[in-house]
């Protein structure tokens, strides 16, 4: 297990000198997810001047509010599209997109699957807490069936997306899932995703006690800690799952690196075209 950098060091290196109080509700998972991203950035040792963050709209946008990265908080759902332009124009940069589940899977679904199809060297980290928290609790594309939300007052009858399956099917070459409970593991897979050359997707199972848990206490629990215990009890690592019986795997969520393969990366392929054209071999 790699060294976990002390928080004071992280604060000094990456945060503004006078940070405000946490903008998140009590028990929210976004703080853990945000910290796991910064710790992963720190661990892989990215040069500060070569890192850019693109952030979508949702509670997750406050993850980076006090960070001193170059960052663009764009229109809702368009993170992968901004990142595609930035990465193509500036291949020297490491580009990380942070999105929510609604941001990435609903309004931004098209950009998400096409970034995966192109296998462009961007890392997409999804804070997946099964609800539109920022707008007050409407159901999203990953909200489990039967959940109660402000827009599903009688129970949700739509099935949810599995981001990892979607990403793999669309062509992402690195796909992993982590949770806010398995924090050190999350830092680890974030780091692997950032270093992977190609489109990396990290689906972070997170908790929203105030907006989701409040209305659905029988699912993951009511409080942040209850919801995280649920993650502990309902997630199984890819490695452990290999040895588990089908009975043990029932109702379990697989965490870990699900896809890690090599395929031509879009930015590099486009540069090859440029070189070919410039040599007059169009």
């Amino acid at each position, binding site marked *: 297990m790699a060294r976990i950098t002390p928080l004071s060091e992280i604060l000094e290196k990456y945060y503004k000198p006078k940070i405000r109080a946490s903008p998140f509700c009590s028990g929210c998972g976004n703080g853990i997810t945000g910290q796991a991203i910064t710790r992963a950035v720190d661990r892989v040792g990215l040069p500060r001047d070569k890192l850019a963050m693109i952030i979508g709209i949702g509670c997750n946008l406050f993850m980076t509010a006090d960070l001193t990265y170059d960052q663009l908080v*764009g*229109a809702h759902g368009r993170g992968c599209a901004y990142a595609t*332009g930035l990465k193509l124009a500036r291949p020297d940069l490491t580009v990380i997109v942070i999105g929510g589940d609604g941001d990435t899977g609903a309004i931004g679904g*098209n950009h998400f699957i*096409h970034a995966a199809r192109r296998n462009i060297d961007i890392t997409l980290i999804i804070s997946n807490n099964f609800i539109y928290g920022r707008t007050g609790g409407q159901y999203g594309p990953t909200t489990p069936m039967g959940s109660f939300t402000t827009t599903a007052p009688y129970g949700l009858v739509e099935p949810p997306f599995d981001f990892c399956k979607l990403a793999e099917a669309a062509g992402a070459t690195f796909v992993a899932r982590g949770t806010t409970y398995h924090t050190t593991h999350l830092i680890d897979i974030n780091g692997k995703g950032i270093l992977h050359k190609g489109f990396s997707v990290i689906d972070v199972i997170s908790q929203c006690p105030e907006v989701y848990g409040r209305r659905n206490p029988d699912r993951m629990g009511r409080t942040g800690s209850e919801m995280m215990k649920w993650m502990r009890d309902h997630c199984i690592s890819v490695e452990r799952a290999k040895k588990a019986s089908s009975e043990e795997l029932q109702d379990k969520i697989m965490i870990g690196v699900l896809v890690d393969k090599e395929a031509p990366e879009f930015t590099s392929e486009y540069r090859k075209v440029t070189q070919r054209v*410039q040599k007059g071999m169009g």
Partner: protein
Amino acid sequence: MGVRFYAGYPITPASEIMEAFARRMPEVGGTFIQMEDEIGSLAAVIGASVGGVKSMTATSGPGFSLMVENIGHAIISEIPCVIVDVQRMGPSHGLIFLSQGDMMAIKWASPGGNEIIALAPSSVKECFELTVKAVNLSERFRVPVFLVSDAYLGHMREKVEVPDPDQIEIVERPRPTVSPDKYLCKDADATGVPAMADFGSPYRTKLIGSLHTKAGDYGPSLEERVFLVHRLRNKILAHLDEILMIEEMLTEDAEVAVFAYGITARSAKAAVMAARAEGIKAGLLRPITVWPFPTEAVSKLAERVKSILVVELNLGQLVREVERASATKAPITFLSQVDGLLITPQKILDRIKELN
């Protein structure tokens, strides 16, 4: 250096621009990408622009509709970009034929009602020259700049003498002159344009789509909100001398002045010449910059002519601005055509004669 990034999505009658970029960009070491939709196109343009690379896109009505959210984002985050709108008929898919129906949409589509810049070429030569100008203005003022063309102009072939690259004026965005530790990414005075550092430089930049402080942070005070909203407008309006371009023909002694822009101004020009040949004192005011609107020029024109004839290929858009600018100093007549065809000089001449 000029534009080195283009992102677009196929649409008639604008696709030729994209196809040309697909061929050209690799030749000059730039990047072209065909995105999944026009929302993604303008988003990619914005992404490339924050990386410090001059970027543009082109579209037409239905695609323009999809770009609206990111036009707003480029306005508030002050990200230079150029959008060519090769206008076609609306609403919705309308028809792919000639129209000037987007004149108000480009100005007002984004919530908030801020200033943008729009240039209207009326020849192929001007398409070339004004595209350069559009890129320069977008860099200078960190604002989306529109080149409003149309289905006819978009398919027209005319002679263009491309000047030597050294003869072309190239403007770069204002970049920071202070040290990185003193840099605030949205710091400018009331009519100023903040210095823009590239992403991936020693300067730290934060561009958010919300109203923000001079450091680019969330949570502006009431005063900071008002300051920013006004600055985004006044950085344009305080520099009209650098932005406004107008062509006036025979307006010195004109009694009937025609107001027309883009392709329509060519018919209007022919009509004015024909009227003069018949002894009618006609003239033409052609705004080349349509937004911000050349209010002062129209106001002065209204003071000295007996009547203004506004010709547009829509149901009446810039005629409202002409009415506002003339403030009843001269009677305004509106000549509209919305059949997707070019308006003939004869049709304009007939109306000039009626007004004479």
